């Protein structure tokens, strides 16, 4: 993150096609979102747009001004739909829970239309909440999927907002029957969460399906065998008006969605968060190897 300024340089130096005007991308700043935003940036720049990327700490920083002053956002199906749902129907509204990306996108169509947002093609790559344990815990207790923990009592290290969420604490206890003896709000895929699990302070930690650092830390993800996670497939969200003015954006971004898979994304994430390769370089590298650039 933090390289929003330099992306401007990229846009001016490598624009090849005809001038298509200005385009603003907003994205969350965590590693994977920043990486995907950078891929959008490079592709759209090549297509002739003057791209401005804004990376922010959380979705609420841009959701209020999208699509008014933000044109394109690398999103997750469940994320954007449920965010709009909460905004439209209050934060107690029942969330959309479909496990399939395309289905969820269809379910949320009305909300998206009302907001003036159009989702392009849904990628097969998906980034949902995942829960991990140490390799040792897995081996010792024979635990490989979440249902293996049913009836067991664990301490959960998770994001601030985990409590009461169906895709997190509530789902784990209600659907899987896991006894959460204590919830430590140490953050989503944060170092403190890893450390807490590794140190044995907690047994179960929250991260994402595309976390590239787990293997290097001796941690393993447990399979979500009862599908409590709503679909979080990667998808470009574009302002409807902007899209009708610039229909070529879809032609630029849809191939990228087709090329991305969960495995590839996990590998790319690992390069960034473990080897700390420059996200720009990683993006270029990937786009080139996929023949998109």
């Amino acid at each position, binding site marked *: 993150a933090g390289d929003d300024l330099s992306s401007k340089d990229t846009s001016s130096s490598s624009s090849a096609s005809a001038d298509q005007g200005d385009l603003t991308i907003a994205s969350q700043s965590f590693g994977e979102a920043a990486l995907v935003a950078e891929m959008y940036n490079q592709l759209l720049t090549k297509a002739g747009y003057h791209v401005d990327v804004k990376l922010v700490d959380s979705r609420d920083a841009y959701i209020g001004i999208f699509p008014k002053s933000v044109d394109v956002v690398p999103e997750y199906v469940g994320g954007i739909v449920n965010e709009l749902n909460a905004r439209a129907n209050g934060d107690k509204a029942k969330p959309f829970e479909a496990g399939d990306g395309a289905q969820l996108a269809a379910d949320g169509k009305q909300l998206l239309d009302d907001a003036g947002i159009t989702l392009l093609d849904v990628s097969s790559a998906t980034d949902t909440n995942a829960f991990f344990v140490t390799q040792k815990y897995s081996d010792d207790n024979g635990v490989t999927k979440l249902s293996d923990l049913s009836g067991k009592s664990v301490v959960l290290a998770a994001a*601030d907002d985990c409590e009461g969420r169906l895709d997190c604490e509530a789902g784990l206890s209600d659907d899987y029957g896991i006894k959460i003896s204590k919830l430590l709000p140490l953050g989503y895929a944060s170092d403190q969460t890893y450390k807490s699990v590794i140190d044995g302070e907690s047994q179960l930690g929250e991260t994402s399906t595309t976390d590239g650092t787990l293997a290097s830390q001796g941690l393993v993800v447990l399979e979500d065998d009862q599908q409590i996670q709503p679909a979080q497939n990667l998808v470009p969200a574009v302002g409807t008006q902007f899209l009708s003015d610039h229909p070529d954006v879809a032609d630029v971004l849809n191939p990228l969605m087709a090329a991305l898979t969960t495995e590839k994304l996990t590998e790319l994430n690992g390069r960034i968060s473990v080897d700390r390769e420059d996200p720009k370089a990683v993006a270029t590298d990937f786009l080139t190897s996929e023949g998109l650039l």
Partner: protein
Amino acid sequence: MRVFSDTWAYLSAGSSWTGDRGLLHLMLQQLLLTGTALVIALVLGLPLALWLGHLGRGGLLAVNISNVGRAVPTFALLALFVTADFPGTREFGPYGRAGLATLLALALFALPPIITNAYVAVREVPADVKQAADGMGMTGLQKFRRVELPLATPLVLSGIRLALVQVWATATIAALVAGPGLGRVITDGFARNEFGKGIAGAVVVAVVALVLELVAAAAQRALDPVPRAPRRNRDGGMSGGRPSVAASDAESVGA
């Protein structure tokens, strides 16, 4: 605006205040955090600054260093302490791992106003009064205890008061590293789109800050050894009283 009615709704709901993650509990955590950080800063900074003030030298360096210390983003400091292999307790809470990191970061944040004011306060005790004390045969310690300290008290206290409010207001960022305190309500609120809740947290923080300020101002007045003649600059309320940080820096420039 809906946000405001939400805020009011959140604040007026009894359930918001009670329980493990209720406002009261978090407020208590943050008060504990603030108080402890302040005590740490006082223990670290006050004796040093008072002594340098008594000697009348070396203090400008301390003042300038502690002032530049302000530039270290508390957030970064916090992150450094949290990501360091920190020997904190495993238990979570005001004195848990993140709590301790926050304590240290906040204590460092509290140092500049405390050091600056204490140093300047002692040094600026009028020269004629100091000389009178010497002239009547007081030892260094007697002079410090009976003359310099009482006369420095108001300014020292105003430094502590400044530090108190700043630390309290800054303590919310503990939430950024999953630390304790009311910051959690704010981040949680914004993270879950419950803006009313987030703003409610901010409101509580601001109100408590004002209360602390008023209480500290009253304490400062009560502890002032010289009953003030009505003077041009009033020390009461929010006005903060005498030139503190600003005045001291003016000298460091002249020197």
